[in-house]
């Protein structure tokens, strides 16, 4: 059984925000104004050691959102993807407080600015309603997993920094990359340390 994960290779991410755009495009029917399921954060921008990381729901194996939800609306698919049921979600915001990655978001469209149903990355795996139904597209967005495809953000990553897939597979890809790059200055002619020369 697969355990689907995202992995972002910080040595490859060039902060093009293509994954963000791909996500918004793939799930456009489900995303209301102000919701952005994926974001790219750049650390030490313009300084030595600059690194960009694309982040969305990490589909935790021990998900805090799932544990804290008063409505118990989260569930984990056979592929280890953490999804939630918007019919049960009460918009209390606890998952947003508990999530380390800031993945859950809430549309503010009701009176007094109260929260609507929570929205987050579904790993392009839809929701608890029938696959490819109108309801699924409107509430949860794409269901590429049911089509046998990976999330669009990773599929469209121009530098293949963002990897999606079974944890075993993507971590072995990443391991091969690290081995090929080696440590800084160990292999002649290749120093992966971004902007380290300017230190």
């Amino acid at each position, binding site marked *: 059984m697969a355990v689907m994960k995202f992995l972002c290779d*910080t040595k490859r991410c060039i902060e093009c*925000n293509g994954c*963000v755009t791909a996500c918004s495009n793939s799930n456009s029917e489900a995303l209301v104004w*102000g919701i*952005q399921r994926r*974001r*790219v*954060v*750049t*650390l*030490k*921008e313009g300084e*030595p*050691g600059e*690194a960009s*990381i694309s*982040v969305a729901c990490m589909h935790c194996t021990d998900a*805090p959102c799932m*544990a*804290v*939800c*008063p*409505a*118990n609306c989260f569930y984990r698919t056979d592929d280890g993807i953490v999804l939630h049921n918007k*019919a*049960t979600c*009460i*918009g*209390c*915001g*606890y998952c*947003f*407080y*508990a*999530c*380390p*990655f*800031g993945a859950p*978001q*809430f549309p*503010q469209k009701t009176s*007094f*600015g*109260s*929260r609507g149903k929570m929205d987050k990355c579904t790993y392009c795996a839809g929701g608890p309603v029938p696959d490819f139904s109108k309801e699924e597209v409107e509430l949860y967005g794409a269901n590429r997993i049911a089509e046998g495809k990976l999330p669009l953000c990773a599929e469209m990553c121009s530098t293949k920094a963002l990897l999606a897939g079974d944890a075993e597979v993507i971590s072995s890809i990443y391991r091969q990359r690290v081995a090929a790059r080696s440590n800084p200055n160990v292999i002649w002619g290749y120093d992966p*340390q971004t902007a*380290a020369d300017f*230190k």
Partner: protein
Amino acid sequence: MMIKSLRRLLTLLVVLMSVSVVMPSYAANEQTSQQMANAEQSTADMWRAVKAGEVGTTAATEVEAGVLINTFGNEGKIIKNDYINPAMMAVVVGVFSIFLIFFLVNGPSKLTKGFSGKMVLRWSRADVILHWGMAISCFALILTGLTIMLGRHIIQPFIGHEAWAFIIHFCKTVHDWVGPVFFVFWAICVLKWMPRQTFKSYDLKWFLVAGGYINFGPFKGKHPHSGYANAGEKMWFWSLAIFGLFICTTGLMLVFPGLALPREVAMIAVLVHGVSAIVIIGFTIVHIWMATALSEGGLECMKSGYCDENWAIQHHDIWYDEIKANGSLKYQD
């Protein structure tokens, strides 16, 4: 502008309430930044900084979008799930059972001279209305709050999905809308009743004989002195005043997402809200037991506003002597 200053005020309040919860993560930050300063630039250091909550730049605009990892909320979740939720369960079941057993063993506290039939004015009409306004809203909040806190463990496993979705949604909506109603009643009651609730020296003696409610052993037949409110009622009042302030403040913070509070502050608010609820619910169970079952003639005070003269003499002798002496004693027509 108002929302902004309100947000700042609320943030400050909650930070003051719970500085101790924040300290560990602050220490972790400092340690990490020291490691950062000493170490060479490396991937390990970068990830350590990310885990410690380093803020980067991003095009995303939601709250704290620049923070990649914030572990505080997960720690709060552990406190909530492992300590606060079980404590709530223990308090609801425990306090109720203890009082049930005590009542079955002890029996009610009867009036030693029986009912006199003469009714003395104790609560004004306004007081009675305020009391029931607060009581009904509080009770609605307790039932819906308990469902929100423990429902997924004690209700959801036994019912269908649709029914559960309806119940939890109903409870959340009621909790949101009744909360401000309770806040208003609570604020008026606390301010109006506070002058009669200051502790006096005879209140200590009230505790020493457990209020005179025990019908066996050395405490049997004891009737300690008490003013308008006895020491137990004063304790209830001040608990409700203090934890009511906490629960109302944190409740208002949580119900307005427009405040866009930082996640740490919101999580602390959830925890403070839960702890305050435990205290208030514990006292509420005791209060209802005392009024309905344990103290004979006690419930009458909040039905009509009048109490039996013998009840006043037995349970609130200092108050009775005082109103008799200054002529403010008023009988029911």
